[in-house]
């Protein structure tokens, strides 16, 4: 198929995006940025599903992607609500300062 990239490229791109997301979650301090990095990781996984679905000629992967997207939408709504509530209480979005959930 002309103009069609091989599967490994898609998987490589997806792995790269996932790694960027994971590093973002781990190193950034702003919870909103961490949140965005999580979205990036989700979409990296979505890309893997779609690529494999196309390559294997199965619709299963695409169906799962729709599920992931809808769950992600719900998660985004809840997550943002939590962040706003947290900000109202603590006046910060710095993850290093939100450490009261411990001994």
């Amino acid at each position, binding site marked *: 198929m002309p103009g069609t990239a091989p599967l490994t490229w898609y998987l490589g791109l997806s792995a790269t995006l996932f790694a960027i997301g*994971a590093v973002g979650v781990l190193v950034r301090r702003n919870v909103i940025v961490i949140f965005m990095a999580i979205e990036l990781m989700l979409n990296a996984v979505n890309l893997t599903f779609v690529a494999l679905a196309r390559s294997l000629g199965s619709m299963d992967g695409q169906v799962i992607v729709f599920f992931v997207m809808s769950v992600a939408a719900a998660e985004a709504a809840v997550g943002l609500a939590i962040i706003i509530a947290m900000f109202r209480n603590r006046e910060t979005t710095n*993850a290093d300062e*939100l450490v009261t959930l411990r001994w």
Partner: protein
Amino acid sequence: MTETAWLRWIILLPAAGVLFHVFVGRRATAAVKIVGPGLVGAAFAVAVAAALRLRALPAGGLLRDHLYTWIVAGPFRAEAALRLDALSAVMALVVTGVGFLIHVYSVGYMAGDRGFARYFAYLNLFMTAMLILVLADNLPLLFVGWEGVGLCSYLLIGFWYEKTENAAAGKKAFLVNRIGDAGFLLGVFLLAWTLGRHGFWTLDFATIERHRDVLAAATVGGWSVPLLVGLLLFVGATGKSAQLPLYVWLPDAMAGPTPVSALIHAATMVTAGVYMIARLHAVYELAPAALTVVAAVGAATALFAAVIATAQTDIKRVLAYSTVSQLGYMFLGLGVGATGAAVFHLVTHAFFKALLFLGAGSVIHGLGGEQDMRRMGGLRAHMSVTFWTMTVAALALAGVPPLSGFFSKDEILSSAFTGPHAVPALGVVGLVAAALTAYYTGRLVCLTFLGPSRVSPEAAHHLHESPPVMTVPLAVLAVGALAGGLLPVPAIVGQAGEAEAPLALMALAALLAAAGLALAYQLYVVRPDLPATIAVRLGGFYRLVRDKFRVDELYDALVVRPLFAAADVGARGIDPKLIDGVVNGAGVLVATTSGLWRRVQTGNVQHYALSFLIGALLLLGYYVGR
């Protein structure tokens, strides 16, 4: 066997008294004075009715009262059932009859005591427990009464617990009895196990007697079961009935109020061991060796305690050792196979010993608490009822014919020479002890009532005869001590073949009694300067006897101190260092390790996310690299 449903009232009446005294008594002292003795009197009436009913039955008959099934454990069963046969009828009559008189006397003796209601609650509980013991139809129920009298003796000996010695005496009685009870329980277990192996899972006396052949053939580890059972049960009897080597608690038991001493020494408690062996004599008959041990221990105790009694100056202590000695006679009787004579002596002893103790209580009461016979003397003029009744009891104890003690003691001694398991050597020991008995009882009466007065001035000022509520029971008991020898007890409870004492032996015993009494009179009334000279001449031996052969000191050194030392090692060494060390060490270990691990939990979500990632990578690595 005749079933009845009213035998239980002999026990339930005093038991009701306990409840009354506990819940109502403190606010109604006047009612306690009526209810306490009254219920025991009622129990005596029921016992008399039961005994008459029993007499109407053919020989060997018995009344039975089944209350309920008490224990069902696998195949084992024990009924809460009462049994009245000749033996338990005699015992029940003595316990309730003498007990009633002691209750009446107590009303006078304990008047004005702060613990009046508590005293009668204990006293009635004592009667209840003793009657359970005597009327029980099986060994487990007998054991309930057995432990009950142990508890009550502890409560009553330590009745005036504000004084440390009294509380200690109570504890001593309880602990020494515990040793005996351990032996008793082992004997009961062995009996239950042996019968159970042959499919008889019960311990009522009828079953035990019916399966004697099973017991006779049984052995455990090469030992004959009847011998082991007999010896173990006898260990229990030595504790409860104050025989060598466990007699030490009884002389201390006089720390309690004097009527309690009378109750313990005469009607209840110490007779339990004698009764138990008489009850189980079917088992003992299978083991002549065990019977010989019983007889030997009894004779040794009779002599040993009689020797000690000759050198005591406390009036109650003389009587206490006298009880130990007389119980020795009863065991001698049991051991030579004269069950009837032993129970006969138990009955007559209950009369005259209760009388002696109550009389001593009257003397102590009259002198305002004085117990030392060296500060008595010449009381005859002031306390004539006490003097005459106590003299009757003393003569009965000394074995002067025709008073009660003469007959019963004579039957035991003659059985020792000619009975079914005769051991003549022990009979000789018994005769020597009889002479000593006459001597120390004579000494007691002479020192207390005759001769010149040595009473201290303040006590002399206070001196008075006791009120009728105390002297009337004395008079009633004196009748018993006088005429108790006419009771046909051996014929009722004994087996066939118990011979009347031969005339020569009777004469010898009477002569010994007279000689002992005469010696005491000579030494303490005619020549009162002599005893001190003799004591000096005897020197070390006299001091040894006066100090009761220092048995208490010996036990203290051999048992009490090593136990305390071991307990001390435990309390100061093992407990704080080892036990606490292990417990505290476990706590410290958990605290330190958890202190390390809790640092992992920072609260920072990014750290958690990192651990997710590491975990995910490890899992990935595992599946890829596999």
